């Protein structure tokens, strides 16, 4: 009896998992299929489950549209700058927060969390005014700066928790075995933190890649991909939108695919 109930419970869990996965995966799948269909097939109803005539027409039309390749390149630059800057500033800050007791560590941590408490829309106007005053509006560096500002606090918090999960005794052991403070960090703490640091890197990349609001209000001509698409969304045909959607989601999926090993080891071990 109990065994049967257990089996029913398991079955229900599987059903729930499948439903939730479909809910997320089905749109991704249809977007991908549409992006690789012919122009006409995009408009067809009912939808084909499997792609009928695989073609790069839709993609080509999208890429040939005004400003798309440039905005794609800009998006990559911005995401790359945000990633590098966040890692260079955020990882040491996270390490300091995890390892050292200093006055104000707790308020500092709270302040970091509180940056996420305000919706961007509240600071939109002051942000735009400030950018205009400093003359960094409509530049990719300006957008990158905004993205760093959004992602840095969470980068610090994530890396802090990653380093806090690595026993300081390991670094001390390295120090008694001939390492200095920094080389103990580099040879022991950093390799062990790599999965977690990689996880926060994806977070930065995906956030920057998909960020539309700041990019849209801070730029006019030098738009990133989401901002460019947002501007063109109202008067663009369906294939354009679907191909654009594919370009927004594909990099994130690819990155997660290659980095997932690290994600699972971090979160898997934390759960144990």
């Amino acid at each position, binding site marked *: 009896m109990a065994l049967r109930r257990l089996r029913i419970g398991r079955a229900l869990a599987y059903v729930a998992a499948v439903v939730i996965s479909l809910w997320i995966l089905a749109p991704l799948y249809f977007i991908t299929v549409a992006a690789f269909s012919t122009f006409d097939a995009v408009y067809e109803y009912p939808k084909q489950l499997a792609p009928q005539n695989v073609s790069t027409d839709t993609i080509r039309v999208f890429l040939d549209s005004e400003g798309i390749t440039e905005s794609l390149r800009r998006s990559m630059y911005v995401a790359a700058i945000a990633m590098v800057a966040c890692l260079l500033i955020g990882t040491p800050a996270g390490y300091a927060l995890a390892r050292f007791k200093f006055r104000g560590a707790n308020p500092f941590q709270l302040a970091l969390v509180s940056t996420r408490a305000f919706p961007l829309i509240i600071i939109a106007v002051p942000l735009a005014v400030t950018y205009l005053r400093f003359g960094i509006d409509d530049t990719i560096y300006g957008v990158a700066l905004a993205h760093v500002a959004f992602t840095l606090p969470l980068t610090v918090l994530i890396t802090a928790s990653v380093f806090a999960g690595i*026993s300081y*005794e*390991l670094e*001390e*052991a*390295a*120090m*008694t*075995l*001939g*390492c*200095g*403070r920094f*080389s103990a960090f580099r040879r*022991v703490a950093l*390799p*062990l933190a790599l999965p977690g640091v990689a996880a926060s890197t994806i977070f930065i990349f995906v956030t920057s890649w998909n960020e539309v609001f700041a990019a849209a209000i801070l730029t006019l001509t030098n738009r990133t991909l989401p901002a460019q698409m947002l501007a063109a969304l109202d008067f663009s045909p369906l294939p354009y939108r679907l191909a654009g959607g594919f370009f927004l989601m594909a990099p994130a999926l690819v990155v997660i695919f290659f980095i997932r090993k690290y994600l699972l080891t971090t979160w898997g071990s934390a759960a144990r």
Partner: protein
Amino acid sequence: MADIRFEGVRKNFGKFAAVDAVDLEVKDGEFMVLLGPSGCGKTTLLRCLAGLEQVDSGSVHIGDRDATDLPPRRRRIAMVFQSYAVFPHMKVSENIGFGLRMQKEKKSVIEERVRSSAELLHIEELLDRYSSQLSGGQRQRVAVARAIATNADVLLMDEPLSNLDALLRLEMRAELKTLLQSLDATTIYVTHDQIEALSMGDRIAVMNKGRIVQLGNPLEVYDNPADTFVGGFIGSPPMNFLEAKVTTNGGTSSVEVSGGSFGFPGDVAALAGHSLLLGIRAESIGVETAAADGLVRAKVIVLEPLGSYNLVTVRCGEDTLKVSISPELFPQPDSDIWLRLEPTRIRWMDRDTGVAIHTGIEKLATETAVVIS
């Protein structure tokens, strides 16, 4: 190969003095145990020697060098941590060779030393594994192999056996002692386990509240505790303490405890003016089955047969005592036995300060100890 000297070492954490003006000299090649309850400062003292803590005042000398301000890597020490601290991202062989790689040793030298250290700890077949594939006992062996591979002058061990189960600990204790005898490194070993301290150390420094309260060889510390803390901390069961009065009438003195009184042959001048505690080890108490002169009556509360001896808890007047008796003697609960508190085995303590008072008639185990070499 180095002697060690602590001079007036102090370490505070906020207002709390973790190590309070400690002076200690450890001879070259000696096995010194720092023993004390948790929070007594023994680990902090060890970390001051390792360079993992900065001393607030005083100095630390290793060999002929003042190491007080040297970073850990310049102190020529190696340390085994309580958590073992085996690097999880390196294979066992890389762990053992880590210190040598940091010293930029030749590859052939590293390989040779990794192999010989692994052999000493019997872990040759584990060299290609990662720490997550090892049991606790195996990890412990890796940590020790890693520490001895560097040929450090000083070997520091912070409760290395405390995370092992009881049987493994017993096994590892003898093995570790054998191993360390064959090396000539000076060893400082921190533990809260008094049996480990007694069984392994050349000398024991008993610590309490940041200070060293007694320093001596195991027999000395066990047999002749410097104060009530040491007597109560070392030994299983701990030393018995009874409130006592000494009175002198004419030429003879007698001791009065709550359960009775008996004659005391020695000179009691040293005891005058102190409120006294009578300290005596469970095995130093003689047991008789019938009343006689100089014996104190006690009622048996519980009898615990332990194989090699029987442990009886008795009520003697207002005091409760642990007495170890012959394994073939079985006094039943509620029966009466008579105790002989042998004057030469009594260790007098001042009740207010807890410090030992010597009358001069004590028979000390260190004087009759036989060393066979």
